[in-house]
């Protein structure tokens, strides 16, 4: 096997080592380069053009300035890359702008960098897709009217591919990225050779543009700012150091250097050839600058089409990078409690989907709102990039001064220059692009920062209450239970509720119904249980709540009061949930009632054979308490489970982040909870399936053997905060609705 083959095999098959939290396999430089630099290299497909659009405002003559402006941009790119090499060395596990800023500058700069990054990823998708479509349109001009539709189509395509769960496959990136690099260099070499003799003219050469404005210093600055799009994507390597082969920092730094050299040569070369072939590009032209250059240099031959295909491919991949990174940064933020915990684990299919869906919606919105106009989208793009550059470089300076590692003087100088220059460019970008759209990003950042801060505060409050010893649940043993059965029909589920309730042997048991006509039937079904017809006035929910308040007042303060809600389902079709929407709402509303637990007994018609008397007590009641952490809400749920007279009480943790399981076990042991805890993996992060698997071992049939799943739930005072909690509970409840013989109890833990 040749060396290359061996490398390819290792890449394809993956080196059998864990890179910790990173999802990538450890990559050799040859593959890491395409994986991480597709974003940065692809920006060469449009950077020159963006600068030319600005220059063209001052007329055809001003276009000659593209070469010196490109030199300035290239110098900036070199500075940023040199200073990022310092970051890579300092943060061998990956030093994204958020992390570097938060660690060295404080929480708010960290959050600003994070907000800038999140916005940036949405823009990366929008910009790359639009530019990719432009490359396609340059080769197939008849499709021009479908620009927006095409861009949206590609967003959906990449989103679906990611939802399906593609990993960053090195090869997938390698082909188009190396293809793009090769085609561009083929273009540059052919171009230099041809131009040394006689430069071919681009199709737009000689077009005269009347100056719309004078060639002011401001315009030059603006053109420079537009050209700095060539810098986008540089941070990707710094983010992904952990994915490199050992020695990681060294390999990452080398890859950065290679990428820098490639990017600078490509950018300068394209700019030079655009100048030499006399491309005149005005906003809205059918063919991109690169396409025009290539068309002239390759005389429209097949090489032109190859380049266009490679450009489109690398741009689509650049968008894919954002799809990989957005969930990653979201999960880091969620881990630090700055984003809803649904983003926390990136492997969880559902969670992963959340990030992908949000990102695609944001990108699709941007594409539609800006009509897939690359030039207008790019106005928004650069602010976030330069905020994260400036913050992370400044953070590096402070870090070096504080920690004084070996060679810190050099870092201070390099990152100091980098931070200052990118800071200045940030100002230039903000000033020159403010009215063009940058204001939207600048106003969105504080909104996001505020949101993240509020989420953080909320989770902090919740944690405090969950751990507070004063809020410990009191010790309640079997018997301290009171049941109220809600009767809305007299079908199987209601009959089973009777049997189940008798089995629990509560202190008190009663029934309520909104429907007077059910009273006689009930008396035959459950002769021993008193039934009350709910007082008139208001919705069923209101009437139930009023009644429960009365019961609550009449029982001991520390007793549990459980509403038993039987629910008959006609089939296992999800549509049943919609058909029973009233009952779902009722359950949700009762959950918010203090001092009330909701016990749901769903029965699918046909699951119970004819002739079985469901009002008989089940012989065995297995109780399963779902545990996500050791805190007051869990303790309360365990106590609750004990009041149901279970034959066995299982505490089970399913599908929590694997890295948290060891700590969970330790807290369980420290807390001396007198029950065994089972920690189960949810393969492929499908909690519903894992739970169904787990429950199947009990062989519940609904009359002889019943499984009661006890779910601790948080109830927050502000309804809008509920989105930050209880999503898992919702999923679990949805999955359990159709499982035979399973009873589900929500034990709410009310937070202040």
């Amino acid at each position, binding site marked *: 096997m040749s060396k290359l083959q061996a490398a390819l095999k290792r890449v394809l098959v993956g080196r059998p080592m864990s890179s910790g939290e990173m999802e990538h396999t450890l990559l050799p430089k040859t593959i890491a380069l395409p994986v991480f630099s597709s974003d940065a290299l692809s920006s060469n497909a449009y950077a020159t053009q963006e600068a030319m659009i600005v220059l063209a405002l001052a007329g055809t003559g001003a276009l000659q300035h593209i070469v010196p402006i490109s030199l300035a941009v290239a110098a900036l790119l070199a500075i940023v890359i040199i200073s990022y090499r310092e970051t890579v060395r300092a943060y061998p596990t990956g030093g994204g702008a958020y992390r570097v800023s938060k660690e060295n500058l404080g929480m708010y700069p960290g959050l600003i960098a994070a907000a800038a990054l999140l916005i940036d990823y949405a823009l990366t998708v929008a910009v790359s897709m639009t530019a990719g479509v432009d490359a396609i349109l340059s080769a197939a001009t008849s499709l021009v009217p479908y620009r927006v539709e095409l861009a949206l189509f590609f967003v959906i395509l990449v989103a679906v591919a990611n939802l399906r769960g593609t*990993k960053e496959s090195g*090869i997938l990136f390698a082909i188009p990225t190396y293809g793009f690099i090769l085609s561009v260099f083929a273009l540059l070499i052919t171009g230099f050779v041809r131009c040394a003799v006689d430069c071919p003219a681009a199709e737009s050469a000689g077009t005269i543009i009347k100056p719309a404005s004078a060639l002011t210093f401001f315009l030059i600055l603006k053109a420079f700012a537009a050209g700095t799009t060539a810098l986008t994507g540089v941070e990707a390597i710094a983010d992904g150091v952990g994915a490199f082969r050992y020695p990681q920092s060294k390999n990452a730094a080398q890859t950065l250097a290679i990428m820098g050299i490639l990017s600078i040569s490509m950018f300068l070369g394209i700019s030079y050839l655009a100048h030499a072939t006399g491309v005149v590009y005005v906003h809205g032209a059918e063919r991109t600058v690169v396409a025009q250059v290539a068309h002239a240099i390759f005389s429209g031959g097949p090489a032109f089409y190859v380049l266009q295909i490679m450009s489109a491919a690398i741009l689509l991949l650049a968008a894919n990078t954002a799809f990989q990174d957005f969930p990653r940064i979201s999960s880091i933020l969620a881990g630090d409690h700055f984003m809803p915990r649904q983003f926390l684990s990136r492997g969880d299919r559902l969670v992963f989907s959340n990030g992908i869906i949000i990102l695609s919606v944001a990108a699709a919105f941007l594409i539609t709102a800006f009509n897939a106009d690359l030039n207008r989208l790019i106005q928004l793009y650069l602010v976030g990039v330069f905020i994260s550059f400036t913050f992370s470089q400044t953070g590096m300076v402070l870090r070096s001064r504080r920690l004084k590692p070996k060679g810190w003087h050099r870092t201070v100088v390099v990152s100091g220059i980098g931070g200052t220059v990118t800071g200045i460019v940030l100002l230039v970008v903000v000033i020159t692009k403010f009215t063009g759209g940058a204001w939207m990003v600048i106003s969105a950042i504080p909104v996001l920062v505020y949101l993240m801060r509020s989420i953080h505060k909320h989770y902090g409050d919740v944690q405090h209450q969950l751990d507070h010893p004063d809020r410990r649940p009191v010790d309640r043993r079997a018997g301290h239970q009171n049941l109220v059965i809600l009767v809305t029909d007299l079908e199987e589920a209601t009959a089973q509720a009777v049997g189940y309730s008798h089995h629990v042997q509560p202190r008190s048991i009663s029934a309520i119904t909104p429907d007077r006509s059910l009273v006689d039937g009930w008396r035959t079904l459950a002769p021993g249980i008193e039934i009350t017809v709910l007082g008139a006035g208001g919705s069923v929910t209101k009437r139930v709540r009023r009644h429960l308040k009365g019961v609550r007042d009449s029982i001991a303060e520390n007793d549990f009061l459980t509403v038993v809600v039987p629910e008959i389902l006609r089939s296992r079709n999800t549509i049943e949930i919609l058909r029973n929407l009233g009952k779902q709402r009722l359950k949700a509303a009762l959950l918010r009632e203090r001092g009330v637990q909701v016990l749901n007994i769903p029965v699918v018609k046909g699951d119970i054979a004819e002739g079985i008397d469901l009002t008989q007590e089940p012989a065995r009641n297995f109780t399963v308490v779902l545990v996500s952490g050791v805190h007051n809400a869990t303790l309360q749920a365990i106590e609750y489970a004990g009041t149901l007279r279970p034959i066995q009480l299982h505490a089970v943790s399913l599908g929590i982040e694997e890295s948290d399981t060891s700590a969970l076990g330790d807290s369980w042991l420290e807390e001396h909870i007198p*029950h*065994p805890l089972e920690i189960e993996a949810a393969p492929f992060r499908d909690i519903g399936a894992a739970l169904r698997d787990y429950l199947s071992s009990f062989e519940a049939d609904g009359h002889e053997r019943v499984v009661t799943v006890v779910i601790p739930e948080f109830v927050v005072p502000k309804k809008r905060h509920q989105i930050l909690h209880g999503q898992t509970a919702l999923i679990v409840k949805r999955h359990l609705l159709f499982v035979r013989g399973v009873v589900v109890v929500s034990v709410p833990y009310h937070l202040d």
Partner: protein
Amino acid sequence: MALLKRFIEGFTKAPEETRAENLARWISTLEGVTPLSQVAPRQRYRVAGVIQNIRIDPREGRDSIEATIIDGSGRMIVKWLGRSSMLGVGLGKGLVVEGIVGESEGMRVMINPEWNLVPGPEHG
């Protein structure tokens, strides 16, 4: 073509299949371990697997921690008696153990073996 095939497989392959492959590949990097499918009771083995579930029993007199490991070929329970701390044992981690294999309720069990944790496979 092989590349294209692999690319398409990436979209179509069942996750269980990929998982078993990942496990097998990971196991092949560890030295001197016997596949779980080949262990027989009452003999000494060095085996390894990813921790797939854990059972902690803190009740007096029964205090123990159990970890079920899988290696793609089979499963085994590793049991530590009288232990009151996880010492880093967690889901998804690789566990290399050496000791006498026993049997309980049809499952292979190793009680209080020599053990150490290793990084688990990538996408296990």
